[in-house]
């Protein structure tokens, strides 16, 4: 039995906007990335899974429970980290998270213990007793994650968790998300605009567009090898291209990279020998993979984002 089952899920807002349009999907436990264009219905889907929004039609089951009618039972076992800032400034992280644990139905002593544990896990130490108003963006994001984890949910819903973080902050947040899914055994659904982020953290990807399912598959399926060998040399790209053409290979030069189509293993040695003969510095040699953004590229914008 899958963890989450969507059948023909439709959400139409008053005013006629259709956020979700006949979405049918089974999700198994894991770390699941959710991507889609703005307004594609990502946030709507998360809110429906939480029972914060009523679906217009179709059915949604989370852990075998129907979101219509069993919302509270579901929400006791689901954690939610919204995209927007959601923290009162004049309360300490400890007090706030422990209050939120009680709001999830934990007894007060358990709420306190879990709060101490979970704040340690997200990396908040001395500052946990100070008012949240003085926290940095990174610390606030950690508190938001802590309140979503404090009741030990089976499913964690994260809406753009790295918003506003700098590279180091993003790294740390993504590592936390990865650990939450991989080590704590909690299913994570991560909604993000940043495909690179999803690639780093998730093992399954759901792409929706205009409220419809674009594709749902293990991440590896999106990044399959392409049958092109990319050879990056520090200098002498043109020389290499000519040498390879002389060996009978078809070649495209793309900036620092020389791209060679490969049908079998023979071009590998031809490339090696050509580089060795020309005494060129070989920086990188690998089979091209599909990128996640291929999902979203219009034919006319594909060239702009072409990898170098």
């Amino acid at each position, binding site marked *: 039995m899958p963890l989450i089952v969507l059948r023909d899920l439709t959400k139409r807002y008053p005013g006629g906007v259709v956020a979700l349009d006949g979405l049918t999907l089974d999700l198994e436990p894991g770390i699941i990335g959710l991507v889609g264009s703005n307004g594609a219905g990502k946030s709507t889907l998360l809110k429906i899974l939480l029972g914060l929004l009523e679906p217009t039609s179709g059915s949604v089951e989370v852990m075998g429970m129907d979101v219509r009618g069993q919302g509270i039972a579901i929400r006791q076992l689901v954690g939610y980290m919204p995209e927007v800032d*959601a923290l009162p400034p*004049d309360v300490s992280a400890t007090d706030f998270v422990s209050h*939120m644990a009680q*709001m999830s*139905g934990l007894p007060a002593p358990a709420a306190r213990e879990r709060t101490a544990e979970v704040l340690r896990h997200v990396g908040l130490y001395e500052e946990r007793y100070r008012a949240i108003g003085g926290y940095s963006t990174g610390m606030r994001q950690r508190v938001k994650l802590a309140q979503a984890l404090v009741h030990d949910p089976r499913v964690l819903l994260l809406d753009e968790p790295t918003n506003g973080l700098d590279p180091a902050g993003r790294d740390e947040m993504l590592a936390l998300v990865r650990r939450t899914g991989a080590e704590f055994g909690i299913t994570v659904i991560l909604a993000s605009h940043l495909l690179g982020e999803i690639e780093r953290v998730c093992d399954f990807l759901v792409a929706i567009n205009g409220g419809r399912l674009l594709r749902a598959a293990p991440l590896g399926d999106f990044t399959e090898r392409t049958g092109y060998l990319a050879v990056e040399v520090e200098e002498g790209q043109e020389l290499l291209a000519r040498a390879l053409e002389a060996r009978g290979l078809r070649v495209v030069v793309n900036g620092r990279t020389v791209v060679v189509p490969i049908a079998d293993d023979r071009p590998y040695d031809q490339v090696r020998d050509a580089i060795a003969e020309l005494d060129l510095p070989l920086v990188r040699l690998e089979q091209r993979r599909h990128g996640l953004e291929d999902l979203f590229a219009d034919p006319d914008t594909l060239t702009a984002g072409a990898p170098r």
Partner: protein
Amino acid sequence: MTEPLRPTTISVAPTAATGPGGSIYDLGYQSYNGARLGRRAAATALYRYAFREAFGVGRGGRAKIAPLILGGLAILPAILAVVVAALAAQAGAGDALEGRVPVRYETYHGLTVTLLMLFCAAQAPELFGRDQRYGVLPLYFSRALTRTDYAIAKVAGLMSALLVVDLLPQLILFVGRVLVAPDPITGLHQEAPAVPRFVLQCLLTAGLLGGIAGLIAAWTPRRAYATAMIIGASIIPPIVVALVASLNGGDTARIIILLSPGDILDGANAWLFGSRVDNPILASLDIPGPLFIATALAGAVATVALTVRRYRRIVL
């Protein structure tokens, strides 16, 4: 990045901390297998939290200033009255004093009602506005309670806080008078009839004022606006009533006055204690007492219902 504190081994049997041998304990993520008490527990916890929030507990020193001053001012007359009565009794002047002291059960409502309105104006925006201003509502509504539970727990917290501020001085007065009486049994006899009256009056006051303030604050996330509107809701209706009464005479004023919370509570208080109303307009309108009580109750119920409706319709 903080490295996970993953244990290399986990000892199963407890090991003595002294002596040979040792053990490494698992400090990694622990799953929670304890009780999940569900909706009722969550709502009750929120009610308690709201009650404490109304007094600024858990939010730094400054948040406590307004509730402490207002609460203190509400209790002060009762303490003074008891002290004066005790001194007078010692001096043998107790009977002479009786009836002349302005602090009595039936006058206490008039002494505290303004303080209670200010308490509402200061604290209701904290209880209802903060969660909206700072976007905390999605965190509540994605937990083990419903929007209705949230609204009712918050309103109940505010009403309970008001009840404490309102009832506590009356109880002080009651206990003081019983103790000051020549002997406690007689005192108890004398004072007991007032108890149900002031309890009911305090319940009506807390219910109606809390209901109105909660409703206004729930609709007005901006703190300053909410405070101004709550004060306005207490000041403006009596002025309108006075105007209408002077222009139009009794009938319209009789209806309008039932929209003025201060006048409703004054009327109920007068009827409960069988005393005279100070406000000449209110007195002149000659409205049956039970109508005041019924209106206060209806007002409390209606405002709570509208507050619930507000939270059910907030789009997150």
